[in-house]
């Protein structure tokens, strides 16, 4: 009987769904029967498989069978049928909305368009086991780098065309060259895992699922620029990432991969984990530097840039987690190979967190140049419910919304920026017709109002003013001139703010105005919010013809505002309705619709 292994996702998402308990149950089961069967290795706790929504995910190799939403009660059956035997348990396979089942991940439409570089080991190895990382080739690129002259490493990075995955897409090789050219006896390398965008978890998944590849990337960068100390700045909420990074560092130190004379070379290099307080602005590199130094997390004026004067005034190279995760892969297979994937100006892949009103959400890695439409419809499986697509938000609070008409643009740094969006660090939120684009803009304005450091006038006061105007519009007190006024404020913020937060903060507002201006005008002139989101400008109604009288809405209404007898059309008592939209969400017959007040 061939050796089989079981991969149980124990990333934060699946752990929350019970992955940890499941892994223990598997371990116990395999231990008890292990001697009899030829099972090796036992159950493996891995990082994220991507389809967190249907977690916990369990994969049985070598058949590559993936089971979803597995409970500890299922362990015995999986053992008997799939591990000891060769039977597939159909009940646990992924089933698409049309009932089609997929035995392996390779057949699953969620995975088909994906290409994994940054996530190459995530979900494949136990992140706490350094041997597994080494067995998959981690640290080979570092060994190679240690033999190379630093300029050659920088040349290779530059040739690869890799652009920073932290948001702005700055050419990584160029940044390394600047830092390498800065003259100083002390230099630092910092890995940015602050990841403050709402809805984003790419960097956490990488650091948590494959910490050694990140360490390897950091060490290669250190060799290239001449640094001897590295830092990984992780928000403290990322308990798993903090723990796995620290454990990986300890293991690497024990194996001589970090510390003195790494891998027997003449280079000393070590890495320390710094836990951040979780402020969005601390993802901005100079605020991050202040935070590491123990100062208030406020951005510094640039220039000087960190590459010439960063941590404690020393040249500091800052890159994002995903950028570092790409480094070793590039050095391993060569810049040319990397360039074969992606577009001319944005080679390689990008990891996204795909969330929102689609059928399949999760962590994905796609080649640059893929269209948004493929991401939404092929990977994401299209829209949930029967509501039409309205917009996709990319790039988090610094990005923007992209409408249906632009779904065929090819995703890369430049095309997203052109559409007014932004690659950002990689959040993608799909919105349907029940999203109000005024509320959408206000959500981000409010988020940033609290997350801006508050130091400079345009950002702090501009956000406050935008919020006031958006509130007025949503309450039916807006004026047409407010739309132009918002555009003016946005221009001031964009040009006059001190740091990238304030400069990019207008993007959600500007893109909403660019692509959905009519909706703003409708709010102002007709006092109507067609999405049914702004309570003063809309009301929910039950369509008598469509209502079957099932009462599910009444049961879910928190305000007990829905009246009616079973099997007869129901009605909303407008004076009691708090307009939460719960009825619309639960109605199976689309009988609840938003309309005018």
């Amino acid at each position: 009987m061939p050796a089989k292994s079981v991969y149980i996702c124990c990333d934060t998402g699946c752990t929350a769904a019970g992955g940890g308990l499941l892994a223990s149950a598997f371990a116990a089961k395999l231990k008890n029967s292990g001697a009899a069967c030829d099972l090796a290795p036992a159950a493996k706790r891995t990082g994220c498989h991507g389809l967190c929504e249907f977690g916990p995910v369990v994969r049985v190799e070598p058949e590559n069978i993936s089971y979803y939403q597995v409970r500890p009660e299922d362990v015995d059956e999986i053992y008997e049928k799939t591990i000891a035997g060769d039977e597939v348990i159909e009940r646990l396979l992924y089933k698409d909305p049309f009932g089609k089942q997929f035995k392996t991940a390779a057949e699953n439409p969620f995975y088909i368009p994906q290409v994994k570089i940054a996530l190459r080991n995530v979900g494949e190895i136990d992140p706490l086991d350094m041997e597994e990382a080494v067995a998959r080739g981690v640290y080979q690129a570092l060994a190679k780098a240690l033999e190379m002259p630093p300029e050659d490493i920088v040349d290779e990075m530059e040739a690869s065309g890799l652009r920073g995955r932290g948001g702005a897409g700055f050419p990584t090789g160029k940044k390394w060259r600047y830092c390498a050219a800065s003259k100083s006896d002390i230099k630092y390398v910092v890995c940015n895992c602050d990841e403050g965008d709402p809805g984003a978890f790419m960097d956490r998944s990488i650091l948590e699922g494959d910490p050694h590849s990140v360490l390897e990337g950091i060490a290669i960068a250190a060799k290239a620029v001449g640094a001897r100390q590295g830092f990984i700045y992780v928000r403290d909420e990322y308990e798993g990432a903090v723990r796995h990074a620290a454990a990986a560092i300890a293991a690497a130190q024990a194996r001589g991969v970090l510390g003195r004379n790494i891998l027997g070379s003449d280079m000393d290099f070590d890495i320390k984990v710094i836990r951040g307080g979780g402020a969005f602005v601390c993802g901005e590199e100079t605020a991050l530097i202040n935070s590491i130094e123990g100062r208030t997390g406020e951005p510094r004026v640039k220039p000087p840039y960190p590459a010439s004067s960063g941590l404690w005034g020393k040249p500091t190279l800052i890159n994002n987690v995903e950028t570092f995760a790409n480094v070793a892969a590039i050095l391993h297979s060569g810049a040319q190979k990397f360039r074969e994937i992606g577009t001319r100006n944005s080679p390689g892949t990008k990891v996204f967190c795909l969330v929102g009103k689609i059928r399949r959400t999760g962590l994905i890695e796609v080649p640059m140049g893929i269209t948004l439409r493929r991401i939404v419809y092929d990977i994401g499986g299209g829209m949930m419910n029967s509501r039409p697509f309205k917009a996709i938000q990319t790039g988090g609070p610094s990005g923007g919304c992209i409408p249906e008409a632009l779904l065929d643009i090819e995703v890369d740094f430049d095309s997203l920026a052109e559409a007014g969006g932004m690659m950002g660090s990689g959040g993608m939120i799909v919105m349907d017709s029940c999203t109000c684009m005024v509320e959408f803009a206000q959500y981000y304005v409010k988020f940033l109002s609290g997350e801006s450091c508050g130091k400079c006038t345009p950002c702090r006061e501009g956000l406050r003013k935008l919020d006031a105007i958006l509130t007025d519009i949503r309450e039916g007190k807006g004026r047409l001139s407010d739309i132009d006024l918002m555009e003016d404020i946005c221009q001031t913020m964009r040009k006059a703010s001190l740091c990238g937060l304030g400069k990019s903060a207008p993007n959600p507002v500007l893109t909403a105005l660019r692509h959905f201006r009519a909706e703003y005008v409708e709010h102002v002139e007709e006092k109507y919010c067609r999405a049914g989101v702004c309570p003063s400008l809309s009301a929910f109604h039950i369509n008598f013809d469509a209502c079957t009288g099932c009462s599910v809405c009444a049961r879910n209404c928190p305000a007990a505002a829905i009246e009616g007898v079973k099997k007869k059309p129901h009605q909303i008592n407008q004076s009691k309705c708090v307009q939460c939209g719960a009825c619309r969400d639960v109605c199976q017959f689309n009988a609840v619709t938003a309309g005018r007040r």
Partner: protein
Amino acid sequence: MFITIDGKPCECAEGEFVLAAALRNGIDIPRLCHHAALPNQASCRLCLVEIMENGVKHVTASCSYPVSEGIEVVTRSQELQKLRSGVLALLKERAPASPEISALCEKFGVAGDKRFFRDTNERCVMCGLCTAACKLLGASAISAAFRGVDKKISTPFGEMSPACIGCGACARVCPCGAIPLTESGGAREIWGKSFELVRCPACGKPFATREELAFLAKKFALPPEFKGLCRECQRKETVKKMPELRNAIAAYPSGSAK
């Protein structure tokens, strides 16, 4: 090194900032959070200029932008005027009660919109000079608290600060008159704390708080008999010592003055 400001070639030194170079050359740039004795705050964003560097034009705050060979600075343009007006309007709406801001608005023909006034009694624009002064002094009794739109200047937890020595440096550097400092009956009140004022040993006028003098004595390891002098008497004292000082300077070996 040479840069041009509004077409005028200006010589400047490595490490100098554009605003300082402009002021030295008689070119005025509106500003609020700049103070020659304090570190750059770069927070008000009024001192915006256009900079042409390596063929690329960008807008930036002149107070904190270091000069480099050959850059071309423009301090007046239509775009800058628009941006400055935008920033000023935001400042006015933030601090409608500050006469200094109102005066600036008048000068630049900016009104600000009452609809967006945050607090009609507010004077502070959050420039940060007060906390910078307090920190430089070494007391660090006040700092910015909270973040985002709620950021404000405060003593720790908004309570009386034990570290405050009542020197009033914060109130003096504040460009908006936002920090109330009152003196009456030989006492000074600031940040909710009352300080007894010590009289000048020369002229007898109340001039400093006891805590302030003790702080100075400690910081500079002054002898126990140190009593201090009010500003007026200090100046007189200096004038008296002038000939002595002049002789001392003359006696200084040339070339070693660095």
